């Protein structure tokens, strides 16, 4: 099993460590005072209300450089990379030949046209690296996954904290990043995240990640900065209805069904599997990824069947949990489009019992970030 450079920090902070996508990662931290579980829910609320640090060094990074870098990324991704100027970030997909999704990614433009950093899921890092190599259109590719550590700083106090260490980053707009220096090493401070809160994901060389982690905790002690495990990372993203590869999207997902049509730009360019994906678009629009709240008792889980009131199967649950913010059971599911309007009544097959649920507007929770977007 692989471990990040922060393993010793996690163990010293009484983390409960688990295997995740081949990595030895903290799922939650136990409170040192009592020795009992601090708990995913308290970590979750800490991020919603204060600021949390996540070790996301397990994420993969692929560097795409050279004269053919742009051309290669245009072919490999669904979003329009020509829109990116230096310091811009873009959510995108790696499509396969069958109109499905190899991975969901963020493309960071270091130098327009000739230097990009692509952040990929840990679980897919090796698959993606092979995919890039076999579909390369002449770019200079490098797997930099081992070179980079990554720390996500998220929550209402995150920007203030990161700005204490990297002066000036508070001015970086959402989905932009800034090259910064830490301990004489080049880092990228990106105004991106996976929690719905404002904050940064900091790409930092592996050799410096422990020092940065400690610095963030010590400089953020008055802001109550604390480490947060992968358990809360999952509940935070579920409350925002952010997709998780392997749950909401996989090799067979039609991006239009997943509500990701906004990152597919077929009019702007050619990309792998474009014709197939477009041909499948009408079928994709017949099912929709929706959020729902349980009306009856029970917690929806990945793989549970979704039924209509007449007990006909109309979909599948992709993710579910008890929302720590709302203190009720929430879920994400693919359902037939007849049942996708907000307010639709559906049943979730929980161990053979048809438990009532209702399709709801998403994100489930409003945060400073979602409110900002509306204005």
């Amino acid at each position: 099993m692989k471990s990040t450079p922060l393993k010793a920090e996690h163990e010293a902070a009484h983390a409960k460590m688990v295997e995740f996508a081949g990595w030895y990662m903290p799922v939650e931290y136990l409170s040192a005072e009592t020795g009992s579980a601090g708990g995913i829910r308290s970590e979750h609320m800490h991020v919603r209300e204060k600021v949390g640090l996540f070790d996301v060094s397990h994420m993969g990074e692929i560097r795409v450089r050279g004269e053919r870098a742009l051309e290669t990324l245009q072919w490999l991704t669904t979003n329009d990379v020509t829109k990116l100027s230096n310091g811009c970030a873009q959510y995108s997909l790696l499509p396969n030949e069958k109109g499905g999704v190899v991975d969901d990614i963020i493309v960071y433009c270091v130098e327009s046209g000739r230097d990009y950093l692509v952040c990929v899921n840990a679980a897919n890092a090796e698959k993606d690296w092979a995919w890039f190599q076999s579909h390369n259109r002449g770019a200079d590719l490098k797997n930099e996954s081992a070179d980079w550590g990554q720390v996500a700083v998220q929550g209402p106090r995150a920007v203030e904290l990161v700005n204490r260490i990297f002066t000036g980053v508070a001015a970086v707009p959402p989905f932009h990043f800034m090259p910064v220096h830490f301990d004489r090493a080049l880092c990228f401070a990106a105004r991106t995240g996976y929690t719905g809160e404002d904050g940064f994901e900091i790409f930092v060389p592996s050799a410096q990640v422990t020092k940065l982690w400690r610095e963030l905790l010590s400089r953020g002690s008055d802001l109550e900065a604390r480490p947060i495990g992968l358990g809360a990372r999952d509940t935070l993203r579920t409350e925002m209805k952010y997709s998780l590869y392997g749950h909401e999207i996989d090799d067979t997902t039609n991006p239009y069904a997943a509500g990701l049509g906004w990152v597919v730009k077929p009019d702007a360019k050619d990309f792998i599997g474009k014709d197939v994906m477009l041909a499948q678009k009408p079928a994709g629009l017949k099912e929709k990824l929706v959020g729902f709240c349980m009306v009856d008792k029970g917690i929806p889980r990945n793989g549970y069947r979704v039924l209509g009131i007449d007990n006909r199967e109309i979909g599948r649950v992709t993710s579910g949990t008890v929302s720590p913010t709302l203190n009720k059971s929430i879920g994400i599911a693919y359902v037939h489009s007849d049942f996708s309007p907000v307010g639709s009544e559906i049943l979730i097959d929980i161990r053979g019992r048809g438990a009532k649920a209702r399709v709801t507007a998403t994100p489930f929770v409003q945060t400073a970030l979602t409110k900002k977007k509306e204005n």
Partner: protein
Amino acid sequence: MANFTVPEENYYTKDHEWASVDENMCTVGVTEYAQDSLGEVVYVELPETGQKVTQGEPFGVVESVKAVSDLVSPVSGTVVEVNDSVMENPGIINDDAMNDGWLVRIEMDSEKELANLMRAPDYRKMIGNK
């Protein structure tokens, strides 16, 4: 690794339930070790009184934020009492798994089945208690 409370007088299953026996009545809960590995329990599903349960078969579930875990009955018999307060406030299981966090009382069909369960020393060994 923490040392978990494993009372001497109880019986234990390999699925981490405890059983406290008083004549033909058996009180069942999950062990300290089980609640610790589950994390915060947020949902409990238990049978109704009068329901039959079978040794080694699931009779309910406990769910934490992340995981669903079957409750496996240590004995066969009839459920005669259900701990309603645990269903309303599942966190009791984390606070006091071995007492207030009890789940059901079962009227046993046969005390002979107890021979299939573990006693405290074996259970301690299984969970790595020192």
